[in-house]
Structure formats: structure tokens, C-alpha cells
């Protein structure tokens, strides 16, 4: 039991931090520009594929730096030549633009790298088990993923709280018009933030690519959860995104470990339901079976009871 809890916590923490890497970029972009970037998970996928291609030529480690840079530049260009033009047509137009962009990126990836998963390997340096606890080993690469995510989080925190750029960004987060009126080059800040946001997503891709399969469907599998994180955390709040990512990461991982079903709960109170009773399968479904939809349940509850999200300051 203790073993299950420890490893579930580690896995949940890992998954949560990965979600945060993605959600932080998304929250920054949304808070600053009011654009919900539907293509954010696609930049994550691009980062993984760029990292894979770089690893084919020079190895995994250069990819860790190059891939986020490349994708960040692409993101900045998308903002400068795409979003900025669409901006004057309103938020819906921006939304549709990023939505279309997501499809285009997915098709491009399929055209260039094919539809089968690519063999993005864990670097040899990290291909061992970090420690053994209760006869279960934990891969070193996962520890690396965890440490990288924490490092990026701390870096982001320091950037936002201790530097001038961070000051301007935080100001633009809350009062973009005022910041513009004060003479700062707000469009440049927007472009930088979009680029950095995409770069963060790409970094998450390079980190997660070898562990979770690098395939064209990876954007679609992570995309919806990302929005749940951002909405639950609260649009406009980085701390909220952090809390929500960890919460959802932990919930999804621990839910898989629970074999309780409604039938079990009812049995406690003396009601016996089996697969043959009315609505049979519904009673017999265990928490583990419905684990993937629990984040969406949370999303619905938040939207009903607290639309601002856990720590948000703007209405969803």
C-alpha cells in the first residue's frame, strides 16, 4: 500500500509538472492577449518531433536547447504575421485562427514524419533505474523529467518576480492598456510572451517525448486536459495553473489505483446491484475505469460553482 502511494505520488507529481509546463505558457498567453491558444498542444508536439529529429543527427542533449528555441521562434513568427493581423477582427477570429493552426500542424507532422510513432529514445546517459524502493525500480529519466520541470518552474518564478521584464509582463497581465499607455512596446512584449509560451510547450515536448510516445496524436491527447487545467486554475493566474496542474495530475494517477465502484458503496448501505440490474454497467464501473473523465467532471463542477476558477481574477 505504501509502495503504491509513493509511486503514485511520484507519477502524479511528474504528470502534474508536465501539465504545468504546458499550462504556464497557455495561461501567460491568455492573460496577456486574451487569446486561448488552441494550437498550444501542437507546439508541444512540434517540440517533441524537432527534438527527435535533432537527436537523430546529434543526440538528445542539444535538442533540449535547440528545439524549444526553434519552436519559440516559430511561435513568435506566428504571432507577428498571423495573430496580429487577425487581432483586429476580434477574439473569435483569433480563436478560429489557432484552431485551424492546430489542424495544420498535425497534418504537417503526419506528412513529414509519418503516422506511426517515431523512435525517440531516452538518452543513454539516463537509461538506468534511479532507485529501487520495495522491489520496484524508478527510471532515472523520469527523475530527470521531474527535476527539469521544477527547474523551469523556479526559473519562470524568478523571471516574473525578480526581473524588469517580469515586472512588465506581470503588469501587462493585469492591465495591458495601462502598460501600453505608459510607453512600453506592448506588441513586442506580446510577441515575446507568445514565443516563450510556445518554447515552454516545446520544452515539455522534448522532455516528455521519449517517455510518452512521440506520435501525431500526442497533441490531441493532451490538448483537452490542458484547457481543464487552465479553467480550473483560473484564467489569468499562474499560481492557479500550478495548483490545478498538480491537482489534476495527482487525481488522474491516484484514480487509476482505486477499484471502488458505486456498487461497492451501495453494498455498504445494504443495496446489492450487479451487472444485470437496471443500469448495471453504471453501478459496476470502478473509479479506475472512469479515471480519464474525472478531470472533465472537475471542469464542469468548477464552471457551475466557481466560474473564476480556483485562483482566477477574470471570468471564464
Amino acid at each position, binding site marked *: 500500500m505504501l509502495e503504491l502511494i509513493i509511486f503514485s505520488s511520484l*507519477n502524479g507529481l511528474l*504528470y502534474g509538472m508536465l501539465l504545468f509546463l504546458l499550462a504556464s505558457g497557455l495561461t501567460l498567453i491568455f492573460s496577456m492577449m486574451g487569446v486561448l491558444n488552441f494550437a498550444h498542444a501542437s507546439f508541444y508536439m512540434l517540440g517533441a518531433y524537432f527534438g527527435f529529429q535533432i537527436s537523430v543527427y546529434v543526440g538528445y542533449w542539444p535538442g533540449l536547447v535547440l528545439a524549444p528555441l526553434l519552436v519559440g521562434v516559430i511561435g513568435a513568427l506566428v504571432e507577428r504575421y498571423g495573430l496580429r493581423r487577425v487581432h483586429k477582427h476580434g477574439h473569435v477570429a483569433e480563436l478560429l485562427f489557432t484552431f485551424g493552426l492546430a489542424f495544420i500542424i498535425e497534418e504537417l507532422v503526419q506528412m513529414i514524419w509519418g*503516422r506511426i510513432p517515431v523512435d525517440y529514445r531516452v538518452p543513454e546517459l539516463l537509461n538506468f533505474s534511479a532507485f529501487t524502493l520495495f522491489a520496484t525500480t524508478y527510471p532515472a529519466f523520469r527523475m530527470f523529467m521531474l527535476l527539469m520541470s521544477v527547474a523551469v518552474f523556479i526559473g519562470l518564478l524568478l523571471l516574473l518576480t525578480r526581473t524588469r521584464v517580469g515586472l512588465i509582463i506581470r503588469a501587462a497581465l493585469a492591465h495591458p492598456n495601462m502598460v501600453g499607455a505608459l510607453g512600453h512596446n506592448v506588441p513586442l512584449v506580446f510577441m515575446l510572451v507568445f514565443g516563450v509560451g510556445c518554447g515552454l510547450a516545446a520544452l515539455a515536448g522534448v522532455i516528455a517525448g521519449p517517455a510518452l510516445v512521440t506520435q501525431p496524436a500526442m497533441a490531441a491527447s493532451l490538448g483537452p486536459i490542458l484547457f481543464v487545467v487552465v479553467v480550473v486554475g483560473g484564467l489569468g493566474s499562474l499560481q492557479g495553473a500550478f495548483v490545478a496542474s498538480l491537482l489534476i495530475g495527482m487525481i488522474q494517477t491516484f484514480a487509476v489505483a482505486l477499484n471502488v465502484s458505486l456498487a461497492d458503496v451501495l453494498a455498504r448501505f445494504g443495496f446489492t446491484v450487479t451487472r444485470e440490474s437496471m443500469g448495471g454497467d453504471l453501478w459496476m464501473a470502478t473509479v479506475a*475505469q472512469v479515471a480519464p473523465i474525472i478531470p472533465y467532471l472537475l471542469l464542469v463542477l468548477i464552471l457551475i460553482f466557481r466560474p473564476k476558477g480556483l485562483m482566477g481574477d477574470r471570468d471564464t
Partner: protein
Amino acid sequence: MKHVRRIHAWAAAFALTMASVAVQAQIKIAYIDPLSGGAATIGEHGLKHLNFLVEGINARGGVLGGQKLEAVAYDNKGSPQESLVQVQKAIDAGVRFMTQGNGSGAAIAISEFVSKYNERNPGKEVLFFNYAAVDPVLTNDKCSFWHFRWDANSDIKMAALTNFMTDKKDIKKVYIIGQDYSFGHAVRGAANSMLKAKRPDVQIVGDELHPLLKITDFAPYIAKIKASGADSVITGNWGNDMSLLLKAAADSGLQVNWYTYYAGGAGGPTAIKQTGLDHRVYQISEWHTNVPSSEMEAFADSFLKKYGGASGQGWWYLRMKNQMDMFADALNKAKSAEPKKVAAALADMKYKNSIGGETFMRASDHSLFQDMYISSFGAGTKYDEEKTGWGWKTVGVIKAQDTVIPTTCKMNVPS
């Protein structure tokens, strides 16, 4: 003058249509399986099989005195709804023979669609060749005259596996894990009932279903298996679900025996090697590369050379070879490519396959019965898989007659 020119125009048009009809004398078979998504690796591998088989049949002179076969690929993305769209596309393109295998959900949808289509379009029937979807219901309650299955159904496979497990006294706690759809439910049901009957002393410590072809990180499930204290795992998982499950087991160093249906599918052997479990992963199949047979060994070798690729994924579906060889035979026996006549020729066909085994199609439910092999994966075999250095070794054989189980099929045989 105008009158003569119009006749020339009509004659030209008539000649052209006749010419195009003559060119279309190829017999097309549609491959409707996932070419994207979580089963893309398996789907692509199966397509290579079909292409290789069609090339071979055509090289040997084709069928019906010179007509060539042609394989046409359609991506059903693993979804039953998408499969129906693709079947309709195939029918519109003039294809009369469909084949599919990855996913009983898609197979059931296709089988029902084909039955309804054939009912409503007499004279334009199509046939469905199922080479791998093994939910028993396809040859029982949902059986159809137009559906043929070349793989032993899930109950037969589970009966063979549980018989093998009966004598293994080191099995004390079993964990059952599967994909949450019709086939996974069938496996879980059969495993539970058959284990209870044959090994009442064994404790079933886990009975788990997970979403189909969606999960990329099985670490939480492996943690659960570890926590249950199981020494053996039974699973019908295939595609990414099998290879990633094994990969997660390798990452966490899980030491259990695996009793599987599809651990040998593309990507599986590489994952098994990573786990380091030498001859502790078992599968039940109709063949493996180390079944001694000079004909089949040469055949598998030539496939590996042509289509093996960088990953070295070799021949895996003897059942598809059986299917295509019997299809060619049926075409020649019926002397026609009319699906109804081909179906009649196939319905009770007896066939000696490439490893010298006597197989037979049962007319009452269109199931093919063949010898089944239980094998384990490890070191010390003649042929290895996917460049791992490990290969399959037979640990048990069940003869075709011993695999026969009754059927509840009540087929509507058209006149």
C-alpha cells in the same frame, strides 16, 4: 453529316467504356484497419503482410486464369464508425471483398453493415474476411453468411491458455487487465470463469479494464499490479496497449509471468526484451517463426528481407496467409469472382496450410479451425524477433480438432 458524326461519337464513347471495364478486371480486396492512432504500427504491419501476399499470388499467375488481385488500403483509425465510412468508400470504388482484423468493435460494425447491405442489394453482395477480430460473438449471436473468420475466437484461446496454466503450480495470484471494449470484456469473462473451473485454488487479485488505445503511460497500472502481489498477468491487449504496458513493466522492474494473446505483435518483442523476462512471457497463436517448416521459414525470411525495415518486424499473421491462399483457391474453385459463389466455396473448405497443418472452415459459423501454439519468448531460439536476439519457443500445441467448441450461430444462408 451531323448524323454520321454523332454515331462516331457514340461509338467512341461505347468503345472507351468497354475498354475501361476490361481494365477493371482486377479483383480488389480492401484493407480496412487503423493506419493512424494508437494501433498504427500494427495496422501498417498488417498492410505490408497483405501487399506481400497479393504480390506473391499475382507473381504465381494470379487467379481465375490470369486475373490479378489488388489490395486497397483504407484507414479506419480504429473506430467502428469510421470503418463504416471506409467500407462504403470501398464499395463505391468497386471493391467486393473487405478484410479487417484490428478491433472487434470495428469488425462487428462492418459485419452488421455488410449483412444489411447485402440484404438490400442482391446481386451486388460483398464479403467480409476477418483475420484477427476474435470476439466470440462474431461467430455466435452476430454470425453472418457473409463473414468469415480465420483466427480462433477468444474463448478458444482462453481455454487453451487456462489449460496450460492448470499444471503450473507456481501460479497463485492472477491479475487480469484488458481494453475496455467488447473483446476486452470477452477475455475478462472467459478468464474469470475458466480459471474458477480449472484452478479454483488460484486467487484473482485484479480485474482491470482501461480505455482502448488511448493510454501512453501505463505506470499507474503497473504500480497497481505490483501492489496486488500478483505473480501472473492475463491480458488480451494488442497494439500500443500491449507494447506500452510491457514497456512500463520494464521501467518498474515488474517480475511476473505474462499470459497474452498478442505479445508478438509489432513492437511487442522489443518491449519484452526490455523487461528482461526470459521465457516468462507467453502467447497463444496459430504459428510463430520457430515452428519448424521449410516452406514457411523461407516465406517468412523473404518477407523480412523485403518489408522488415529498420525495426526488423517479421511475418506475424499466418492467419492472413491462410486467408488469402484459401481466397485464391475459392475463386478458382468457384470459377468466378461473384462473392456469393466464393462464399459457397469457402464455407466448408478444408485446407492444408504452409506449415503442413490440416485446417478446416466450419460451415455452420464460418470459423476456421487450426492447430494452436503456446509459446514463450526468450533466448536460445533459431530465429529472433525485431533484432532483439530473443525468439518464440513452443511450449504447448493444441491440435485443430481439440480446439473445436460449439456455436449458437443460426445463419441465414441465401438461396
